[in-house]
């Protein structure tokens, strides 16, 4: 990630480079004077392997006509490379402004990053973008390393095809809530793996589940969502906070409601296996 403007009197800009697309996060008032900086700075960046560009304007309060013209020119330039520009998270006043100026076809707006990825044909509605999933997987690995000194290794991402394919005895469950989609993340453990994790977290030697340590399943899932949310919201997913729950029951699984995609990621550790499940429903 690069912060291209260092001066606090200028709008802020951050460029996030991902495999299939770029995210440009703009914030502050986009005045006539700063449009020149855009011209000089971003054309050089957009000279790298050509990719679709998503501009996150959640923190933009006003946009000058000069900026709008620059964005239109950028769209034209990108289309010359068979790429496109899509704007996300624009406030209602600016959405209306773009429509009033007759620019909605040249500056298409999506309500969320996920919608933009679908609109740009980068993912289908039924797919989960790997860039959405990876922050969760990194968070799981990081949380277990820090909190329990356990090294967790993900063993591939697979699409869930049926209930019961993976089952656990104790699970942390937390909702993924944003303005444009809903979802859920589950981290599910066999009893012994869970006890081993908790014992390492607390430096104790529990041999069976109880109310106190069960809450650890929810807590781990909560911290994972918190960490992943930081990365994902920086890109424009707009995920909100939620309260986690614990599900306990021998060999339980989860049925998915809705038609969105669900992925399963099994993990191996030196204290036993567990799995994570991430699903979305629009």
């Amino acid at each position, binding site marked *: 990630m690069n912060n291209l403007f260092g001066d606090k009197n200028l709008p802020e800009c951050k460029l996030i480079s991902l495999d299939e697309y770029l995210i440009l996060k703009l914030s502050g008032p986009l005045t006539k004077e700063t449009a020149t900086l855009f011209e000089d700075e971003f054309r050089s960046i957009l000279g790298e392997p050509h990719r679709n560009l998503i501009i996150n304007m959640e923190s933009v309060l006003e946009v000058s006509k000069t900026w709008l013209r620059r964005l239109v020119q950028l769209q034209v330039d990108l289309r010359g490379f068979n790429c496109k520009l899509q704007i996300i998270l624009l406030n209602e006043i600016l959405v209306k402004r773009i429509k009033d100026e007759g620019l909605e076809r040249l500056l298409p707006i999506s309500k969320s990053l996920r919608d933009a990825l679908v609109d740009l044909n980068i993912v289908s509605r039924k797919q989960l973008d790997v860039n959405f999933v990876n922050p969760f997987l990194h968070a799981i690995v*990081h*949380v277990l390393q*820090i*909190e329990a*000194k356990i090294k967790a290794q993900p063993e591939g991402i697979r699409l869930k095809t049926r209930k019961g394919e993976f089952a656990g005895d104790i699970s942390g469950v937390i909702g993924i809530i944003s303005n444009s989609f809903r979802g859920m993340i589950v981290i599910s453990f066999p009893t012994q793996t869970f006890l081993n994790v*908790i014992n390492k*977290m*607390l*430096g104790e030697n529990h041999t069976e589940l109880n*109310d*106190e*340590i069960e*809450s*650890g399943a*929810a*807590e781990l899932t*909560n*911290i994972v*969502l*918190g*960490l992943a*949310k*930081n990365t994902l*919201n920086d890109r424009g997913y707009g995920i909100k*906070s939620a*309260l986690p729950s614990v599900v306990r029951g021998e060999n339980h699984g989860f049925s998915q409601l809705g038609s969105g995609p669900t992925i399963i990621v099994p993990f191996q550790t030196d204290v036993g296996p567990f799995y994570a499940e991430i699903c979305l429903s629009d």
Partner: protein
Amino acid sequence: MELAKVPVLVVDDMALSRKRVINCLKDLGFSDIREAQDGDDGWTAIVNAERPIVLVVSDWNMPHSSGLELVLKIRADEKYKSIVFVMVTAEGDAIKKTDAVKAGVNGIINKPFDSQIFSEKFNEILSASKIKLG
């Protein structure tokens, strides 16, 4: 007052989370530690404490009453406004962190942490706030 005698309140809706924080505080030398399950419970514990609470370490997102609501209550009360308040949270939202600072938290420790990280962050917060406990 030695650290072992400093009255501390740990607030979190999850029992395991409270235990983790308590273990970290014990590693720092605290031993007079009480617990509460949410902001309302925490306020009751503060008001009813036989020995005045000096330090509160609280989670942010809790059912019924949040850590933010608790710190606002503490800072609004003449009797309790000087309590040292440390927020412990998985919440990384910059706007919410700004809300916490505006509400008067002395510092924020992000989850995940281990005992060493907690200790370092805790001491940084006290140093930055020029607070000496114990």
